[in-house]
């Protein structure tokens, strides 16, 4: 009888131990899962952001060849941006923000040197009173850049018929924020 009682108590103790152990293990696994999913989620976010970055990098490099900005009349220049189109484009930025999945697009003149400020109008850019023409957005974020040649129409060239003058520039692109 006493032995049965002792065994019964022992059994109950074992059940108790097992129960506590299971609770501890479950809490442990729960914490591990929490850490794993938070890392995974951060990883998915960073993968998505990285893919967005890659897209923006590719876009920065390709900007000079997009029909909206590329210099179509010159078949020799694969890396030329048509500033006359950029000036015209400036009025339709909401539409083009969606076309390229970007939040920010800016053309910067590197050479010849001019005042380092954002242009309010096309004539300021022509008169070299500014060097940054913002086409889309206003706040750069994680921008990707690429060198381009900026082509501006100069009516005085070619004996007054006009021709293209090329400057060294950079295109700045910010991917769409996730």
């Amino acid at each position, binding site marked *: 009888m006493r032995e049965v009682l002792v065994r019964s108590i022992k059994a109950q103790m074992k059940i108790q131990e097992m129960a506590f152990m299971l609770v501890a293990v479950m809490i442990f696994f729960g914490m591990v899962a929490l850490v794993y999913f938070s890392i995974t989620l951060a990883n998915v976010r960073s993968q998505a952001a990285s893919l967005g970055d890659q897209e923006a990098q590719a876009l920065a*490099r390709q900007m000079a060849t997009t029909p909206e900005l590329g210099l179509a009349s010159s078949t020799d220049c694969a*890396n030329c941006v048509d500033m006359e189109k950029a000036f015209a484009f400036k009025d339709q930025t909401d539409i083009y923000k969606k076309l390229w999945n970007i939040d920010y697009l800016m053309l910067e003149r590197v*050479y010849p040197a001019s005042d380092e400020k954002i242009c309010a109008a096309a004539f300021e850019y022509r008169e070299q009173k500014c060097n940054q023409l913002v086409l889309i957005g206003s706040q750069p974020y994680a921008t990707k*850049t690429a060198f*381009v*040649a900026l082509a501006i129409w100069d009516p005085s*060239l070619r004996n007054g018929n006009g021709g293209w003058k*090329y400057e060294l520039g950079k295109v700045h692109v910010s991917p769409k924020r996730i």
Partner: protein
Amino acid sequence: MSSGKSMSRLNAYKKKGQEEMVGFVAIMLVVAIAFLIFLGIYLRKGPSTEVENFEISQFLESSFEVTTDCRLSSTRDPSDMGELIRSCSANSANTCYPSGKEVCDEVKESMMVLIESSWNFNETSPEKGYLFAVKRETNLSDQGIVSFGSSTPPTSNIRSAEKPLPGGIIMYLEIYS
């Protein structure tokens, strides 16, 4: 005697219980350490490095088109850098109109301005120095038709690109980080 026996059995059980607890804690510790090591290895893989010489390649493509102040003759419009490089390679005695400056000097000065406007070279910035050259394909070990650079000696971290031009000429730029 029986109480002595039960005492020793109780002690044995206590010891066993304690051993089990220690064992469980030891397992938890091993798993936790293994997890931390895994986490450390996983988080250590940093951002992948981009092929940066693409930036220099695009710089060379773009600067090739840039319109300079040099006219190759009185009847011509200002030439672009590509035309000046071809003219300099064909004959180093060619001069600009009306300044009379040698075309090769104009290439050197204009490219220097372009390069130093595009990157900020000093000891505290990521880019420490550079070397630019225009060379003939047939004689790459030579000084070059045009060659100049910053005074900083080359470091071990070099990015570079080259642009082949018609007539067997190569335009080359390397940047030290």
